[in-house]
């Protein structure tokens, strides 16, 4: 049960990736590094005596600014380029941020343990730590806010219009550069919130990013680009599958399982598409 809730954090990072991919057609490989930076923000706030729950919005705001700056500095150059270029460029950003964090914060493993209790149900058969329920709640909340924001607000509508057809949106007077910057910054903010949750729940270190990137990628492929509820479901499913695999195969194969699952999902998707094409014929 507790393991199912872990997936909520994966789903958070995946919301952001789906957003950036869908709107800007950029596959953001440094997704996991945003999670890492959010985690460090929460950690340092915790060190300064702030309750980690407060750290979540602060990390989100800081990462929003960071994402905006990053877009203005680098990402705007790759938006209209080939997707492969954006993969490589964000990969470069990713290793840059990793070692920068390593130099600035040190390679030690940190945590911002908030001291939440663990709840026991059914004679200790099921244990759920409160912090994971908080994470799950936050994932639901952010998902709901995101959906409302995209549906109702003027900026959200502009984002959706740009996703549908950037050129038409520009003709209609939408400043697509600003829309892209906001989208990217929003993604960074969501990842930052996820990172704060990671710091509260587990450990953070400078090199934790890549598995999160891969997980978000898998979730997005499974769920599709425009479906917030499916992203959450896929995230929870992945969390469960991963822990189950860690249990069956042994913990040393757990990350191998994540990467192998990615390849398997892509292959499955290909054969599935082949079959749909077969029907069309």
């Amino acid at each position, binding site marked *: 049960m507790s393991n199912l809730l872990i997936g909520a954090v994966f789903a958070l990072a995946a919301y952001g990736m789906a957003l950036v991919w869908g709107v800007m057609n950029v*596959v953001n490989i440094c997704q996991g590094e945003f999670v890492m930076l959010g985690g460090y923000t929460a950690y340092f706030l915790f060190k300064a005596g702030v309750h980690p729950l407060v750290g979540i919005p602060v990390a989100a705001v800081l990462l929003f600014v960071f994402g905006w700056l990053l877009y203005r500095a*680098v990402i705007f*150059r*790759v938006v209209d*380029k*080939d*997707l*492969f*270029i954006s*993969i*490589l*460029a964000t*990969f*470069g*950003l*990713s*290793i*840059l*941020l*990793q*070692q*920068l964090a390593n*130099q600035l914060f040190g390679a030690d493993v940190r945590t911002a343990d908030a001291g939440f209790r663990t709840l026991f149900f059914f004679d200790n058969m099921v244990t759920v730590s409160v912090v994971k329920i908080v994470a799950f709640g936050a994932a639901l909340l952010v998902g709901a806010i995101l959906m409302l924001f995209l549906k109702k607000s003027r900026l959200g509508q502009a984002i959706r219009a740009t996703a549908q057809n950037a050129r038409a949106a520009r003709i209609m007077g939408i400043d697509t550069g600003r829309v892209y910057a906001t989208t990217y910054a929003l993604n960074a903010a969501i990842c930052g919130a996820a990172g704060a949750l990671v710091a509260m729940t587990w450990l953070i270190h400078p090199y934790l990013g*890549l598995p999160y990137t*891969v997980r978000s*990628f898998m979730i997005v*492929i499974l769920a599709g680009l425009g479906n917030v509820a499916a992203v959450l479901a896929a995230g929870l499913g992945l969390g469960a599958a991963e822990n189950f695999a860690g249990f069956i195969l*042994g913990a*040393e*194969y757990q*990350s*191998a399982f994540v*990467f*192998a699952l*990615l*390849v398997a999902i*892509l*292959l499955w*998707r*290909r054969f599935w598409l*082949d079959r749909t094409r077969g029907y069309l014929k």
Partner: protein
Amino acid sequence: MPPTASRLLLIGLVVLALAAPWLAPAYRTQISFLWVMIIFALTWDILGGQMGYNSFGNVVFFGVGMYGCAVIQRDTGLDYYPALCLGMTAGAALAVTLAAVLGSGLLGLRGHYFAIATLGLGFAAGEFASGWDFIGAGSGMVTPLYPGEVGDRESFFYFLLLALTVVTFFVLRRLYSGRFGLAINAIRDDEDKAEAMGIRTTLYKTTAWCVSAFFLGVTGAAVGNLIGFIDPRDVAFAGPTFGVWMVLMAILGGKGTLWGPVLGATVFHITQELFWTYLLGWQRVALGLVILAIVLFFPLGILGWARERWPERFGHAVEERPATGEGAS
């Protein structure tokens, strides 16, 4: 470039490469790695440049060759050289088999799905290798000691890798100038059209990956013995370093050309060695900046940039863009 000039250049480079161990004996291992990098870039370019399939997972074949060779050397109990020969053959065979099996599934993916799937493949291989006890799990494998004087091992593998580089270069040049090259270029330009024209795309794509895997497997076997120690994540299946470098080197030099990867690998390797020497601790930050600079400002690579700048020096490049030619006249 006129044919005689290019032939002279080639001969000059080979002579220089043969003389290098005596000119700069202290840098033998670094230059050996330069050959490895050139092979990396050349073999990546078969798929990435000539066929339009951007693979981040070619390093898998390198690692498989390395481990295959090391296992043969450990378990057959032969003398050093027979075991090495057998091991290199086995490593290459294993890599080619793997490429054929994986290719039949993965090469059906298009565009960025292929790129990400191969990225996952590279990491998955590293994680599996560091969990599998038969090949030493996380603590890696040690290859047998070289029978000879202290410096002999470096010289032996220097010439072995140089020979491999030269063979790779000429085999690829032969392949690109024939039907194979035309077929994979057609796949790059428009795969559906190529298939409609009767090219057996799946066959060509898998063959191309097998060629790439063959050279990477042999190289991996040799490099494992040159280093002497095989670490699953940092040497054999080093996705974030070797796996991405091969892409960058090919792009830096100019993908889709024969000389581009060679040039790119040379420039990249030298820059990189300088970073590791003078910027230790920040080398990955510098590398990240270099990646960004290459990708953002030189997406066509050095050769591509030179070709745009001086199209007349590249002969047929002017024919490729008739619009600019007519505009000038």
